[in-house]
């Protein structure tokens, strides 16, 4: 979405027209959801926070500084909301994160019907590969790749040394490489 199109949507929101918010939702739902999921690592929480994000966007539309890189702004707000949530519910989030890992595992999550057979095999393979990671490794991979965070930011949020973060990430990437996935960074 261009800056002009985004500006137009914000003006619609300020006028009380929900179609402005719907356009932003259609354009950025995936982007925002990925970032939030990357930080909290939990599907239901990510859905709640993403929903809250768009409601907050409606509420604070008058404070948005138009024409100064809206995508980065949206990412920062979403990331901060997810981090706030994680800090408030740290214990529960971590518990549920590991519970997902041990009990169900991402392998059992439903795959969209729209996928072709090839995509399904690919997805299952990636899920399988991810399920081979330890919960702590998967959390760092999520934060780095989906949350688009730096190692320093991850270290600060998880309150562990940056060396440990980079080490765990590298371990995870090595495991995933064995499954046929490479990371450009």
């Amino acid at each position, binding site marked *: 979405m261009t800056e002009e199109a985004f500006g137009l949507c914000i003006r619609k929101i300020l006028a*009380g027209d*929900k179609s402005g*918010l*719907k356009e932003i*939702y259609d354009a950025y*739902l*995936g982007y925002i*959801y*990925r970032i939030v*999921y990357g930080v909290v690592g939990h599907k239901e929480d990510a*859905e709640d926070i*993403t*929903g*809250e994000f*768009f*409601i907050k966007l*409606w*509420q604070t539309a008058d404070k948005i500084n138009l024409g100064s890189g809206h995508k980065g702004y949206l990412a920062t707000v979403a990331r901060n909301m997810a981090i706030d949530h994680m800090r408030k519910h740290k214990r529960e989030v971590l518990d549920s994160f590991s519970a997902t890992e041990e009990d169900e595992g991402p392998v059992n*999550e*439903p*795959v*969209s019907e*729209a*996928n072709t057979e090839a*995509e399904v095999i*690919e*997805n299952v393979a*990636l*899920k399988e590969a*991810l399920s081979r990671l330890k919960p702590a490794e998967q959390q760092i*991979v999520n934060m780095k*790749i*989906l949350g688009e965070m730096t*190692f*320093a930011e991850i*270290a*600060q949020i*998880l*309150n*562990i*040394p*940056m*060396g*440990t973060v*980079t*080490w765990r990430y*590298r371990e995870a*990437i090595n495991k*995933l*490489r064995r499954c*046929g*996935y*490479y*990371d*450009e*960074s």
Partner: protein
Amino acid sequence: MMNLEIEYKNLIDSELPDLWSKIEAGVDAYEASKKDNNDVQIIKTESIEEKKTADTSEESVLNDKPVLIRKAKRKQTIMTIGKIVAAAAVLFIVVNSVRLFNGTKNMTPSADYANDTAMADGSYATAESAAEAPAMADESDDNGIIMESEEAVEAMVEEEADDAVPGEGMAEASAPETDAKNSETQTYNYKGEREKQGIKADETEGINGPDDYMYINRLSEIMPGLELATLVDISKSLYELKAGNIVEVSEATEVSEQDRKALPDEVKTGIGNNEKLIHETLTDDKGITYDLYMAESDEMRFVALYKVEKTE
């Protein structure tokens, strides 16, 4: 090989939830509550205006009452806050005076000891550092920098100073004990560097004193999450190597079994069987780099630090 980032993002995108109805409901609820608030505000404004028009009547005396109570309450709150601030200031002054008094008390005998025994034996530096300890502790107070880690460090410094100078006549007796501690902490971090400088291993310079801790704040910023004990160890070594302010730290890498063979013995023997050897490079503001080795099991533990000599 598939690109992990693209594949993972595609995977998440393929399972995007439909949140629009939920968001729409949230927006409607917000708008409704906003409208309600506006209505309440309009009613409030109207009631205030009614009060204003009725101000000339005798009933207005009653209407003024809550305002007076509010003023009295405000006064009371201000007075309470004032009292708390005053009490805190008095406490602060008392604590600082006691510390200062203790500091001068500790400084005198150890400084005397330092003068008396200077160069006579290896304990000179120990006495000197003991004299520095309270001074540094006060200095950090003057700067007004109060952090949890600093307080912990301060406590450690004071403990060391107390150990080294328990009182007149005891200084000499305690000095070898401190030296033994020093040699124990120093053997594994800068032995190589000291040998290069021609200093024998048993020629103990004494503990570096609280100056070691000038690096701790900086290290805790650029290497968040490290244990305080690890930070203290790294700081000691940086002080020993006369490092400047650390401005950069590289990413951590694991040293392979093969690469370990080329490392000094203190590094090889400094790690346990189940520990991984992690290497990072620190750079100070003079552009000098330092190789930092840490052992990792559950958390990072300091092993060794070496200044990287530039060869031209």
